[in-house]
C-alpha cells in the first residue's frame, strides 16, 4: 500500500508541473501584452446584452462616453468593500466629471436572492452612476472577473487600459491618477 502512495505522489507532481507550465505560458502572454500597447491581448469590452434597472436592454459593446474615459465597476449589494468603493467615488464624482468627463457604469452581480435590493439601495444613496444588472454572472465571466470588487478603466476607443481587484480606502485616488494619465496620453 505504501508503494502505491509513492507512485501517486510522482503522478501528482507531474500533473502539477504541467499545469504550472501552462500557467506560466499564459502569464508570459499577458506580460507581453501589457508591455506592448498593440499586443494581441488588447482587450475590448465583450458585446453582450444586459438589462438596466428600468428593464431596457443595453449592448455592452456599444457603451461609450463620447471619446472620454469610462469606468466599469462590478459590485453587489452584499459586498461591503464594493459599496465602500462606489460610495467613495460618489463623493468625488462631481469633481471627477468636471475635470475629466469620466462616466461610471456599475454592474451589479446580485442574483435573485438580493436582486430586489439593488434599486432601493442605489436610490437611498442617490448614486448618479448607470446601473446594469448581471444576475447570472455572464458579463462578469466574459470580462474575466474572479471576485468583486473589480474595476476597469476604459479609454475613449473602448479599450481596457487599467484594471484593479479588491478595494482599500484610498484606491479611488489611484484610479483617478490612472484617469489623468489616460487623459495625458490622449492629448
Amino acid at each position, binding site marked *: 500500500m505504501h508503494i502505491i*502512495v509513492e507512485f501517486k*505522489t510522482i503522478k*501528482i507532481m507531474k*500533473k*502539477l508541473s*504541467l*499545469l504550472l*507550465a*501552462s*500557467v506560466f*505560458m*499564459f*502569464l508570459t*502572454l499577458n506580460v507581453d*501584452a501589457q508591455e506592448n500597447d498593440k499586443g*494581441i*491581448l488588447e*482587450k475590448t469590452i*465583450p*458585446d453582450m446584452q444586459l438589462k438596466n434597472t*428600468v*428593464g*431596457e*436592454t443595453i449592448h455592452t459593446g456599444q457603451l461609450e462616453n463620447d471619446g472620454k474615459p469610462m469606468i466599469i465597476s462590478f459590485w453587489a449589494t*452584499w*459586498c*461591503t468593500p464594493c459599496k465602500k468603493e462606489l460610495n467613495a467615488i460618489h463623493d468625488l464624482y462631481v469633481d471627477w466629471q468636471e475635470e475629466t468627463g469620466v462616466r461610471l457604469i456599475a454592474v451589479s452581480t446580485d*442574483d*435573485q*436572492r438580493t*436582486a*430586489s*435590493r439593488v*434599486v*432601493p*439601495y442605489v*436610490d*437611498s444613496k*442617490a448614486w448618479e452612476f448607470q446601473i446594469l444588472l448581471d*444576475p*447570472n*454572472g455572464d458579463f462578469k*465571466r*466574459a470580462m*474575466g*472577473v*474572479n*471576485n468583486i470588487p*473589480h474595476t476597469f478603466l476604459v479609454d475613449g476607443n473602448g479599450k481596457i487600459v*487599467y*484594471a*484593479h*481587484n*479588491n478595494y*482599500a*480606502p*484610498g*484606491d479611488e*485616488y*489611484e484610479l483617478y491618477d490612472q484617469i489623468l494619465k489616460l487623459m495625458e496620453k490622449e492629448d
Partner: protein
Amino acid sequence: MKISRILTGAILLYSGMNALAQGTISGNMEANYQYLLSDEKINAIQPDEKSLLNSYINVNYRLAGFKAGVRLEAYMPRTLGYPDRFDGAGLGYRYVGYENDLVDITVGNFYEQFGSGLIFRSYEDRALGLDNMMNGISLNLRPYKGVTIKTVYGRQRFSFVDGKNQYGAGIVRGADLEVNFNEWFPKLSENNFRVTGGGSLVSRYQEDNNSQFILPENTGAYGGRLALAYKKFFINGEYIIKEQDPSQDNGYIYNFGKGMIINAGYSQKGLGIVLSAKSIDNMSFRSDRDAALQDLTMGFIPPLTKTHTYNLVATLYPYASQPTGEVAFQADIIYKIKRGTKLGGKYGTDISLNFSTAYEPLKKTSGINLLDSTRVTYESTLFDKSDLLYWRDINVNIKRKVHKDWTIEASYYNISMNNDVLKLTNEQGVIESHIGVLDVEYKINRKHTIRAEIQGLWTVNNKDRGSWATGLIEYTVSPDWFFSAMLQSNYGNPVKEDRINYPMVFVGKIWGATRVMVGYGRQKEGLFCVGGICRFVPASNGLSLTFTHSF
C-alpha cells in the same frame, strides 16, 4: 497523456490567435492552495497528501460575433470542504458560439437562467464549490423588439473525475419567453409604467431504472412571471408548477410541486423599502432524481434572508432554503438621514432595518388516503403556514461618519434558528441568539487605513455552544497591501474543554488585477445538511494561499 494533448491544443490556439490579431482574448485564473496540519483540539486530521490544491484558468476568445473558450481545472487533490468527486486535471469547460442582434447560439458548456431562476438556473459560484453547468446547446433568439426567447438542451455537470467532466443522468430541455411590453406600447413609458412578462417550460427526461416504483420519465415544470413598475413603486412575481417528480429529496412521493416568489418595493432618494414573500412546496428539481445535497440542481430557490458578511453572523447559524417546503417573508428598509441635520450629523447617517422569517408550510392530510395507489401524501396551499418557526432574523445597522477620518458602524441582530430542521449543530429545538457588532474605521492618511471589528454572540438560555466573540483588525495600504488578524473565540461554551479559540492571520498583495493572499490559522468545522443527507466539513489548521489573476 491527456495533459500534453491539451497543452499542444493550447499552444496551437495561442499561435492561431497570434495570427488573427484582431480578436480579443480575456480570462482569469485562480489557485487555492492549502497545507494542513493536524490539530487534536479541533479534531483536524492532516490528510495523507498534506497539501491540497484547486486551480483553474479560463480563456475566452471573441472576434466580431464569434466566441469560444475553455477552462482547464486541476484538483490535486481537492481542497477541504470541496465536494468529494473532484480530482485530476483537465478540460472542465469548453464552448464555441456565435452572437449577433438576432441570434445567440452556444454549443458546448454554458450557464443560463430563466426569469428569477426558480425553474431553471445553471450557474457557478466557485467560492462555494457550486457549478451545475450545462453541456449541450443554448439558443437565444431576439426575433422582434422586446421579445427574447431562450432555449436550452443538455445534461448538467455532476463531477470532475480523473480530469474529465461527468454529467448527470437526466437530460434537461427548456424554453423561456420574455416580453418587454414597453417596447410594444410606448404609451406605457410615457405614463411612467413599466411592464415585463414571461413564461417558462422546462422538462427533464430520466430513464426509469427503479424496480420498486413506476417513475415518470419526463417531468415537466412550467410557470410565468410578471414585473410591473410605476414611478417609484415596483412589484414582480413568479409562479412555477412542477409535475410529478418522485425523488430522493421528497421520499419518492407523487405530489405536484409549486413555488411562488413576490417582491414589491418603493424607493426614492434617501429611502428604499423592499417587501418579499416566498412560498415553496416540493420544489426540489434536479436533473437526477436520486441526487442529494447541492448536486445537479435545476432550479434555484433563493433564501429569503439578508446576506450577512460579519463572521459570527454569517458562519454560526446561517439559513438555507428548504426545497421540500417553506413559507418565508422579508422586509428591508434602507434610509439615509440627510447630512447637516441634527440627527444625521455632519456627513449623514445610514440606517438599515431588516426582518426575515420562515415557517413550515401546512401539509393537510385530512382528505388523503395514504394507502391508496396514487402515492400522493398531502395537500397544501400557497402561503398557508403552520406555527412551526424555521427562522427569524431581526436586525438593525447604523453607519455614521463621525469625523473626517473616523467612521463607526454598529449592528444588532436577533436570530432564531430551528435546529431540528436546519441541523447545523447538535442542539434541539430553536436556538435564539443576540449578536452585536461594532465596526470602526480610521483613516490614518490618504493611503493608510486601519479598521477594527468587535463582535459578540450570546445564545438565549446558553443553548448550544453558548457565547462567542470575534475580534478583527485590518490594516490596508492603498493600493497594494492588506494585513488582517482575526480571533474567533467560543469563550462561553458550557463545556469547558470546548472553549476553543480560532485565530487567523492574513496578508495580501495586489498588483492591479492580480491578487495574492496568504492566510494561516484555525478554522472551525461545519455541518451541511440538505433534505436529510448531511455532509460534514472538518475543521482545519494550516496555511492557505490564494492567487487570482485576470487578463
